[in-house]
């Protein structure tokens, strides 16, 4: 072992002899396979601000395994900010809503409800409020509206969805129609 000690001194002494190791096992291991390998790449647009960055969701077995900037996108060219990078945490977030919740008047808690029930109830509420408050004319002019229902949002849904909401709300005679663009 004194030989080892001399080697040791010599090795350290030459200063550079740092890789000098008597290898008993190969150290360099092959790099891991890309976690996105074989995943389907679905292009989308970022959810946050209106720069409109392209993102690519890598989907394997129906699950998004990575969200990255779209390198082909002319605006962001693969780049993303911290918010977009963190978006993947939304998808299987433990606190994410997956069931319709209902809070009865005066109740202190939510109740879980079937979606179908909730939609039926909402449609009923709209109908009864609308019917009770609908104004066909004002000062002899047809106005065809209800001023008792308001709708708000949204600037984070697709154009087509916005269009459907506008069309539906105006179709029902809703005049209180607003969203984020005015705040």
């Amino acid at each position, binding site marked *: 072992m004194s030989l080892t000690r001399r080697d040791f001194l010599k090795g350290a002494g030459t200063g550079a002899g740092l890789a000098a190791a008597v290898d008993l096992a190969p150290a360099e291991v092959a790099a891991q396979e890309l976690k996105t390998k074989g995943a389907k790449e679905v292009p989308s647009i970022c959810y946050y601000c209106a720069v409109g960055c392209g993102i690519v969701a890598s989907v394997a077995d129906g699950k998004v395994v990575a969200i990255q900037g779209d390198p082909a996108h002319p605006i962001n060219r693969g*780049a993303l900010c911290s918010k977009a990078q963190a978006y993947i945490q939304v998808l299987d977030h433990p606190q994410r809503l997956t069931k*319709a919740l209902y809070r009865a008047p005066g109740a202190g808690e939510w109740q879980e409800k079937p979606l179908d029930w909730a939609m039926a109830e909402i449609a009923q509420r709209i109908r009864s409020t609308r019917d009770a408050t609908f104004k066909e004319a004002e000062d002899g002019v047809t106005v065809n509206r209800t001023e008792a229902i308001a*709708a708000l949002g949204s600037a984070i849904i697709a*154009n087509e969805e916005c269009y459907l909401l506008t069309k539906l709300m105006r179709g029902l005679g809703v005049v209180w129609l607003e*969203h984020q663009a005015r705040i």
Partner: protein
Amino acid sequence: MPGLGTSFGRGAMTNHWIDVKNADAVLIMGSNAAENHPIAFKWVLAAMERGAVLLSVDPRFSRTSALADLYAPLRSGTDIAFLGGMINHVLRNNLFQREYVGEYTNASFLLDPAFGFKDGYFTGWDPEKKTYDRATWKFQVEADGTPKQDGSLRDPHTVFQHLRRHFARYTPEMVERVCGTPKAEFLRVAEAFARTGAPGKAGTIMYAMGWTQHSKATQLIRTAAILQMLLGNIGVAGGGVNALRGLSNVQGSTDMALLFHILPGYLGMPTRKDHPTLAAYLEKETPKTGYWVNKPKFFVSLLRAWYGEAATKDNEFAYQYLPKNSANYSYMDLFEAMYAGKLKGFIVTGQNPAVSGPNSTLERKALEKLEWLVVRELFETETAAFWKGPGVDPAKVQTEVFLLPSSTHLEREGSYTNSGRWLQWKWKAADPPGDARSDGWFANQLALRLKALYAGSRAPTDRAFLALTWDYGKEEPDLEKVLAEVNGYTVADRKPVKSFAFLADDGSTACGNWIYSGVFPAEGQNRAKSRKADPPESLGINAGWAFSWPVNRRILYNRASADPRGKPWNQEKALIWWDAEAELPDGKKGKWVGVDVPDFRPDLAPDAKGGGNPFIMRPDGKGGIFAPLAEGPLPEHYEPVESPVKNLLSNVQANPMAVIYKADLDKLGDPKEFPIVATTYRLTEHQHTGSITRNLPWLVEMMPNLFCEMSRELAEEKGIRNGAPVIVRSARGEVRAIAAVTGRFKPFKLGDRVVHEVGIPWHWGFMGLAKGDSANMLTPHVGDANTRIQESKAFLVDVRKA
């Protein structure tokens, strides 16, 4: 965005993100692009690499300022004074682009001799009614009705001379005393930006909510528009007044008219007073000149799209089916009405007013007065959970709440319109979990269920709804079918129209939103899906990528990128030019050609009548330096409604037309009690109300708590340590935050007075992983005179150690 709309004709970002790289000077003011639009900064830096100068004007030194060549501080709410000072600098030193101003704007128009401005008021102010009679705000006209002009700009009645006189008061000294910007720093910024007044040079202004959330926001943006017109920076590559919009589809949702006063495509919502009939509507709403003369085609096509066969020539194309407005139903009015108990039901999709709304204490209280509330969200938000918020006893809240789980944008398809007006399709990546559904599904299901409920009704009140066309599938709607309707089609064969040029006012065409027309020009051809990018070294037009409204024009008003003779001001950054030899389909010669789609009639020669009128959406085709808005046709500085100082420019303290709400919870602060200016803002790490981002551990890790930024001087005065808790209090409420004591805020020296300012991000609320008080508990229900957007960027508070 009426500030842009009245000046240029369209209320949208004039240029687009990549185009920023073509600028020679970038002025970021009223925006903190590095933090709130980080990727936009890619293009700001690209411009800088090509020699551009970056100017940051902001009350506090932000991450944007950190990268800037020049930084100038200004007190919140004094931007008009600052920009007015720049206008004055440009005019006094003859730095404006003479030919551009003379030919492309209404600077040469002669104003009514009775028009004037005196001590804070334009002519026509009625102190009794507290409103303006706009009779004198008009041009002198020739016999044919066109405005009288003086091409020399010397006539004292020209818009130009009025402008010069009006802003002569905005001296650098005045800027220093009003804004607190040291004169030297103001001048450095003014000089650097004014250099873009040389023909061929371009300067861009990037702004965001730092400009829109003021009681005179519209005029503020007008001031920028005027400055840019003087410098010849509109319509050119690397120029523009660019509204950096904050949400992925806020441009699209605005285009789609989720706003009380419009219908899709910026068609005004009919009002009882002005539009009892279709004829009255078309008569009042259609200008005699400019591209808007086509409005009847767009409006009738919309009615055709919505009411289908029920819309006939004989019944005013079902015009009477549309609801009519009788009041202002804008955002704060909505909550005031709710607070007053006038609303029964409220449907909220993807918005969180309990955090984002000004005076959120009032807005949360208002929710308690509802009978029912529907919220669609990814997480349980403060709005959905208002009944268990701080200080609320659930037992006393009778509101029924339905909280529906929403899918994420990755779990649904559809198109987003970015700030640069690009419609970009996004494909669905995964299925949503459990009962989470898209908003399209919600609208579709609701419509189908209501249709079923009303089926068979003969009540006249239900006729309109039953006539509403609705055929998009059963569950998740077919969004491409929706987009095809938005694009428009000929009724006879349901074939898509190629563009809005093919729409008609006789009921033969239907179109859901005329400005989007062209996005779906043929069966199965969805141009929002186009994905052919230009090479990086190009001008960045990217005509093959996505679809940009209108008709794929990338830079609005691009006729102005060429001189009156049709030759580009800057050959290297040429967008379009007149090619006298180019052949038209009909064999005639001469048309506009170039890398962008001309925002102009393609065959209208420069020397033809109107051939030099680049702002086609304005009646006279000229840029509106003079353009009437609620509080005047020229911008004027007024103090914010809550301000610690007197207005030095006139005896009119605040915008006389500002909207101030007056419910019991709408209190205004006395500067003696609340001497500190406050502003709110956003951070890179969170999005708006944080309803999503405050639930994401990686983001919460970076920005865990609400904080309040303040200068070292103020902190010392108040005995506040960096990192220690503080209470920030306004007349509306108080919040607890952590002090961020920093050199990035400096006290403002206004003459011999020192005014402090603090800043507080508004992302926090009482739900989620990272909880905190909402900054909007401090902000007032005070609205801009034209848009009624709240004044949350300049209000008064006091700060103390917690």
